[in-house]
């Protein structure tokens, strides 16, 4: 009796387990490994954002246009021709899109949005990003801003889309500061100018009376440090973009140049030339004290911090020809990292920390390239008569630089202009500027 009960109580669970076991279907039998794929831009549909009134409809078209242009320039997206759209977007934002209509034109992603003017006259903009195949909303945000500020909203939306699809931060809500050049080559006027990353909203920061060079953003994107010949000898200045206030960085004897902010924004690293010898100094903006980091009889210049602030890359001709070196932030442990033929200059550490971009001069032409911080993996991305001065987009995937063709014997032609290229080396674009432009610097993401 009790024996049987024991048997039953013991056996039943065991049997159950065994039954469940045998009944359980074998897990997915077939496994397939895919290790290669395509590298095509993603087809994305960005219809005009819906808007009630005429003004709103226009804003909706404009915003969608800027978002579309941003994404297209990245080389990772292929905005589809609006003429191919089947579904009218007017109704799109209120309900889920008709995904079949968008699949039909091979859109993999769809952006819908709307624009409303609010009671206080400000613009309310909303957008949603949809995965057409999965029929899911991927992300969606709303923003409110002044009417004039619509471009920034468009850039912020483009950044959100870029981030959601690629997993990386975007770089569209950024600005470029550069040297705007005008006039003949002999009497060139150079002014500091600032504009959106796509070339819009260009404005000048200096009047052109003094020659300016090498502008660089602070980590907050509110200040610029640059070289100016406003006084007798070239000096490093700070300029607050919003207030227009300028100040000299350190009253040093001799000439100072090639400034750059530290990642925390509290220091400026620069070169000082004394008696034909250039060394690297760090200037503390809070204590107003300078510390010398290198001590050579050569020309050490173009210093740039690593994003964590622990190391500095610079170029020096201490070994005979101009090459790249890396040292600790205190000047210790100097180590040469470039060993290729030719000269290397203007090193810039990627915001991601994984690469250093540089200008290389070899065989009579210039190149923009990247290498790892230990000097390995050198790769040239673009080449030209004169390409120089790379600056990184904040996500470390795109470089901007300036490019110039040869000028004729009278000094005409060959105006410099800005270009971008991504790390693949395939997606090269011109950046529109009102006139000739050189020495670009890319801001961090605004916001």
């Amino acid at each position, binding site marked *: 009796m*009790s024996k049987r009960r024991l048997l039953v109580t013991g056996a039943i669970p065991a049997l159950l387990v065994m039954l469940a076991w045998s009944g359980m279907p074998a897990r997915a039998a077939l496994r397939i490994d895919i290790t290669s794929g395509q590298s095509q831009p993603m087809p994305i549909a960005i219809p005009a954002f819906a808007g009630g009134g005429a003004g709103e409809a226009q804003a909706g078209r404009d915003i969608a246009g800027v978002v579309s242009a941003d994404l297209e320039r990245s080389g*990772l997206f292929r905005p589809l021709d609006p003429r191919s759209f089947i579904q009218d977007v007017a109704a799109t934002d209120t309900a889920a899109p008709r995904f079949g209509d968008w699949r039909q034109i091979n859109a993999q992603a769809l952006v819908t949005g709307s624009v409303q003017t609010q009671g206080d006259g400000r613009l309310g903009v909303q957008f949603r990003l949809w995965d057409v195949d999965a029929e899911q909303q991927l992300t969606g945000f709303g923003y409110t801003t002044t009417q004039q500020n619509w471009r920034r909203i468009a850039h912020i939306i483009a950044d959100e889309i870029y981030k959601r699809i690629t997993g990386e931060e975007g770089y569209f809500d950024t600005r470029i500061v550069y040297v705007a050049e005008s006039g003949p080559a002999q009497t060139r006027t150079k002014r500091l100018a600032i504009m959106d990353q796509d070339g819009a909203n260009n404005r000048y920061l200096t009047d052109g009376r003094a020659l300016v060079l090498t502008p660089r953003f602070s980590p907050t994107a509110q200040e610029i440090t640059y070289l100016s010949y406003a006084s007798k000898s070239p000096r490093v200045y700070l300029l607050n973009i919003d207030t227009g206030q300028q100040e000299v960085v350190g009253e040093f004897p001799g000439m100072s140049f090639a400034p750059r902010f530290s990642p925390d924004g509290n220091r400026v690293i620069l070169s000082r030339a004394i008696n034909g010898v250039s060394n690297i100094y760090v200037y503390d903006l809070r204590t107003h004290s300078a510390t010398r980091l290198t001590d050579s009889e050569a020309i050490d210049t173009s210093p740039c911090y690593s994003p964590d602030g622990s190391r500095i890359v610079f170029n020096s001709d201490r070994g005979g020809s101009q090459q790249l070196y890396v040292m600790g932030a205190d000047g210790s442990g100097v180590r040469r990292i470039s060993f290729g033929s030719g000269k290397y200059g203007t090193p810039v550490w990627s915001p991601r920390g994984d690469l250093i971009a540089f200008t290389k001069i070899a065989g009579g032409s210039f190149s923009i390239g990247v290498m790892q911080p230990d000097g390995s993996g050198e790769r040239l991305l673009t080449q030209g008569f004169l390409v120089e001065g790379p600056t990184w987009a904040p996500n470390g995937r795109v470089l901007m630089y300036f490019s110039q063709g040869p000028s004729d014997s009278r000094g005409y032609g060959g105006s410099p202009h800005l270009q971008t290229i991504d790390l693949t080396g395939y997606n090269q674009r011109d950046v529109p500027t009102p006139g000739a432009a050189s020495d670009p610097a890319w801001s961090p993401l605004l916001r």
Partner: protein
Amino acid sequence: MSLAVADRAPRPEPPLPEPMPDGVGRRGLAFSGALHLILGSLFIFGLPTLFHPPPPQEMPIAVQLVTMGPETRATHPNPNMPQPEAKPDVPIPAPPAPKPEPEPQPQPAPPPSAAAAPPAPPEPPQPPQQKPAPPPPPPPPPEPKPAPPPPPPKPVEKVEPPQATPQPVQQIARNEAKAQAKKYDPGQFDALLRNLAAQDTAQSPDAPPKTRVASGAASSQPRAPLGSQLSASEVDMIREQISRCWNIPAGARDAKDLVVEIRVAVMPDGMVQQATIVDQGRLADPFFRAAAESARRAFFNPECRPLRLPPDKYEIWKDMVVDFSPKDLL
């Protein structure tokens, strides 16, 4: 040992409940012990095979065995059952019902929510838009989150105006993005459940043939007969096809070791019915998510609809796991 037994012996006396002979108790104990042992060993030896599916059958030896495949397979599962409902109607979407999801209808279609009723009411203008409320707006809890199946327009989060000096925007956008990312999870989980359910139903169609086999003839047919593995060339073919459909995410460049597993339920005609990201837990990582979604997208690429697989081996490929890893790319 014996001491313990001796100690214990007197104890049961006080209650003295049953006249259970010592022998029986011990035997019972032994029996129970043996059962537990079996159970234990089942788990120990069974588990590995449960969770680690057999390695890919890419060995060339499969080529030889292939010839036997069709013979041993007495019963063909696929000619039966025209499959529930036409499938993912990629083409002409005449009916406005924006939910062409192939899921067999019994699935949870509780309240025909928003998306299901196209010409329905004018659609509540927008979910509770939180008005500006500067810095830390409570991470929009009022998300209505209607039934997960149809993609409900999630409330658009409200973000402060980005002014000329726009510091706050970023903050808020970040917070909200984070909040949203977190909220994303339940939906994903629901999706997973749905997918599992769908897979079950997807498998059911071949249940009938099996029973027929049992009643008919050779009942001891293995589920996937030995000779019916995909040959190396067949595997190569499908790999090549999927490779052409997979658009590598840009972010994957930095994550060469980022492997994404997609579990795929395929219909007999080669159309993918479900493509599920296996590791849902990692979707919080934006890089993984981007990579996983790009991998899943491969199965919706027109080039991969349908997948070209040998129809006579449907049993083998109707449910497969595809590993995407960009390691060969850069």
